[in-house]
């Protein structure tokens, strides 16, 4: 009798453990990845523009709000967010906001011809070896990072950004932390 109780307890504990693991697994969405950089200093980089006309270092933009967008010429979703980025670039360019694009997983030729064809006005940077994309933890395109004047990542947006998101985040970062 004692033996049977022990066996039943062992089975119950095993089933309970398996149920606990299954339950915990069901409570989180495996497609939602944590944005580990949010709240931390944005990884610094110094990259040349895709036309080679200038080099931009992130550290030199300290004090400005930086909207850092990872994109590619083959990325259809990236096209849908261009109006929002262009709007932010046009409205805030003289008000302490820098919009930057970083070409990710794209050939320099394709990126250049796409930028010329679509007359993209904000600086587009080449990322040889995807070092900057890997440092930012890019998993798909487009991805946009909002970096505050203090150099910290305030928000990571996976997927196309809207005008409301860009506008709201830029205004929030320019206003500074709440008192």
């Amino acid at each position: 009798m004692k033996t049977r109780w022990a066996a039943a307890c062992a089975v119950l504990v095993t089933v309970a453990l398996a149920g606990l693991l299954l339950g915990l697994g069901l409570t989180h969405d495996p497609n939602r990845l944590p944005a580990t950089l949010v709240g931390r200093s944005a990884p610094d980089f110094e990259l040349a523009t895709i036309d080679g006309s200038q080099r931009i270092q992130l550290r030199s933009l300290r004090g400005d709000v930086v909207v850092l967008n990872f994109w590619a010429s083959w990325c259809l979703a990236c096209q849908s967010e261009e109006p929002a980025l262009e709007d932010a670039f046009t409205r805030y360019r003289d008000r302490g906001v820098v919009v930057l694009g970083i070409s990710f997983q794209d050939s320099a030729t394709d990126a250049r011809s796409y930028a010329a064809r679509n007359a993209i006005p904000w600086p587009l940077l080449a990322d040889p070896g995807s070092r900057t994309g890997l440092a930012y933890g890019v998993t798909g395109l487009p991805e946009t990072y909002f970096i505050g004047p203090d150099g910290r990542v305030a928000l990571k947006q996976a997927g196309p950004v809207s005008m409301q998101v860009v506008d709201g985040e830029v205004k929030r970062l320019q206003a500074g932390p709440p008192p």
Partner: protein
Amino acid sequence: MNRRVPWPELALAALSAAAAAALVVAGVSSSESSGTVEQRAHAVASTLKCPVCHDLSAADSPAPVAQQMRAQIAEELRAGRTPDQIRAEFVASYGEWILLSPPQRGFDLLPWLAPAFLGVAGLVVTGLAIRGWTSGGGTSGTSPVETIEADRHLVENALASLEADLE
């Protein structure tokens, strides 16, 4: 009839399994510290997920970003960084999900310990079941000899009843 459960043999089997697992782990870590830079980079990449793939390591994926991860790992190994430092960099950028194996601490210890726990639980249940079967503990609580006697008694009664009916 009573057969002893071979606990020493079972314990030996469990120890052998643990030793085999340790050897596998040791094999992985030693391949990270020996061989050419490319081989070591491949070993480190095999512990990291390809960030744009489903369930493929950075070593196995043909995706350009995985190739770039391998190139970056090789470059950092050449610069003298250790595999753990390289992994820590990727974890800082992507989070711990970039690791193919969960870290061996805190709640993440559970998937490391669960197989051993389930294996031991399985052995215990099997051992208890075998002991129950071999010790003659049937479900009715009667011994086999008693069961045969009872059956013989039933058959004799039935035959007697049949003979009485025939007469």
